[in-house]
């Protein structure tokens, strides 16, 4: 059906996951794999850029819940950015803005990490 891709890049020790396409029950394992890879190599400062994310289902949202606890326990965080209004609506409906920091732009999220370490 629909494609889902993840790009990973690193800036100043912060890892950015770029999501693209449809994140649903079928594609969620890919995102889980990406998170697992980061966590096993002790990368806990993560920004998820949702610029090209066109759809997210409840199973996709569940992935963020699965890792946030571990990440925060290790003084890291998962921050989200660049959501389209439609995707933001899904996050918002579920009350994710209360649990995650969601930014309009990726650099704001990065700055937040950097500011915190200073």
């Amino acid at each position: 059906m629909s494609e889902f891709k993840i790009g990973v890049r690193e800036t100043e020790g912060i890892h950015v996951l770029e999501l693209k396409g449809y994140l649903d029950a079928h594609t969620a394992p890919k995102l889980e794999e990406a998170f697992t890879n980061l966590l096993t190599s002790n990368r806990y400062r993560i920004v998820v850029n949702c610029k090209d994310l066109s759809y997210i289902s409840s199973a996709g949202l569940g992935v963020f819940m699965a890792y946030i606890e571990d990440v925060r326990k290790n003084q890291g965080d998962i921050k989200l950015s660049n959501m389209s209004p439609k995707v933001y609506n899904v996050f918002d409906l579920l009350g994710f803005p209360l649990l995650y920091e969601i930014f309009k732009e990726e650099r704001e999220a990065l700055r937040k990490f950097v500011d915190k370490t200073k």
Partner: protein
Amino acid sequence: MKARRFLYVGGMGLLLLLVLLIDVIRKSVDLDLGGIEYLREALIIGVFVLLFVLLESAGVMKEQSPVKRMGLALIASVVMVIIAFGGSVMLESAFDPKSSMLLPLGYGPLFMATLLNIVFGCFAVAVLRLLRDLALYKRKRGSQRNILIFAGLTLATAAATLPLKPLETEVYVSVLYGLAVVAAIVNSFRLSWIVYLTKREKLFGLVYGFFLFGIFIGLNILIQSVSVSRALLYYSYPLKEFVSLVCVFGNVYFGMAFVSTLFHLPTAEAFDRKTTELSSLHNLSKLVTQAFDFKELIDTVTSMTLQVCEAKGCWLELIHTGEEARGENLLQKDLVIRNGKDGGYLVQIAGMKNISQDEIDALLPVGERTLRDSVLEERIPIVIDDIQKEPRLRKSGRATLPEGSLVVVPLNSHKDVIGILYATKDTEHGFFKDDVDVISAFADQATIAIENSRLFNKSLERERLIREMMLAQEMQRKLLPQKLPQLLYGDLSASSTPAFEVGGDYYDIAQLDEHRLGIIVGDVSGKGVSAAFYMSEVKGIFQALSRLHRSPKAFIVKANEALLGSFDKRSFISVIYAILDTDSGKVLMVRAGHCPPLLVSRHKGSYVRPKGMGIGLGLGDVFSSSIEEEAIQLHKGDVLVLYTDGVTEARCGDEEFGYERLMESVLQAREQPAIEIKEHVLGAVKAFTEQQASHDDLTLVILKWRGNSNGQQVEVS
């Protein structure tokens, strides 16, 4: 049928008695009875025609094998020869050669001659039938014709003698006789039945043919001898010609049969083998279609390999790789299991014939790289001409290797080797190409059968799962309200359809007290079975907690606490919980991460979106502080729509049904009762997604408020 046979036998007896009567009269009067002669011949002919028809209609011996019939013919002809010889001795100069009718010199010879003729006639009829059946075996276009020609010529010869006195001869009779003999010789080349005999049968056929040939020579000599020929001629010239020609035919035919069988003997074994191969393959392919008895199948494959290749020992191994190798799905638990060299596969010896576990282990030592590994890699049969000299076998010096040869054939399925068939012989160079070919053919059949049987078991398992799922679906349907409460001032309608057999959507309605109704719509994250389990848990919690808490917020906070423990990290539930005052139309609702309910009031629709996070996302305060309650006052004609994201996210290509379309479709039907509105919205969703199956659970609850008829409500614009 039986009555008819009696009729035939009776008729024959009657005719023979008549003939005897005529003979006795003829003898006592000593006169040429003229025309009566023809009547007499007609009666005699009638007797043997009746006999032939009787044998044919009863199908006597028709189904027996040619060799068996030859054996019986041999016994009959021996008896015949004895009788004929006895006759020839006893009837020595018993006939008056001066009498033109060759009348016997006494009543004794008359009876004896009659008896001899009857026996000869019956014998000839039976032999003719046998010869005809043999010559027509696997008949070709001309064979039937040739037999008819012979029969025709024989009858013509017999008929030609009708006007003749016993001792007269005519040239045309001899010519016809000669032609009939030629026809008999031509027919004697029809020997195709010999080819299809087994070796054993051929040996018997050879012996029978030899003796039959000899005895028929004797018979022919006897027939031509003075006393016997006179006895025959006296009784009936045509019968004598008939008997004589049949015996000549028999003589030539059995002679030819003997020679032909002799030449077929060397190839008999090969022919036997081919026949066995064919029939075993045929049996095997029949067995393949009934994949139910796996053990029998393996047994058949191994025993046929033994039989057809004349192998000493044979065994069949099943190779399990991947998931199977963990051993759960092995077909028979009690079989010997060997691990592959690197543990990459499991070997299950499914059938052994004439070989022991120790012998197998000597050839294929445990824990070493063996021929098994080679054949698994190469996927082609391997022939070991001399086990003792084979380098791939010799290095395992510990166990003593047997002498002889070995062939190893893989059972190739489309993607991997599912088993290996082995056969051993005592002799070196025991397996030739055709042996390998036939073993490969068996292996192929076995492959198909094993695959079939596995597929069959899989489909059984699948069916069981389907039945389970149907049950689960039925159970889940029962978790939803079977009947919605009747409202005084409004009406309710609801429906829920899972995307798969079971789903994670939930709605329920509980009468909290006399005038308060709790309405819940929830959506468990994910789909399918796992969602369905959570859904049933939500049902329990709703039924237990809803009546205990007067405020929706208190309920939802308690529900979150109750559910958190049993959820895994990535699961959550979005819920709308509304309490409706059925008298006043006042609604108090909370939204825990769920799609905002749609309120259509007059011409306007709006989404009610109090704040609140999904159940299972946050603990204690985080959760409870996120939840807001929102109060709505329903007015006459208002429609409140609770739904799950299956409605708004119903998709057509990349486009979603969305909030706009939902609102629009409710607005269109807002004048209708709740059930009509529901149908309209579901119809709109269905029309939007066209033929695509819904990919998400879809739930819709519609509350239509008709208003309090007492006019307590004030319409506000």
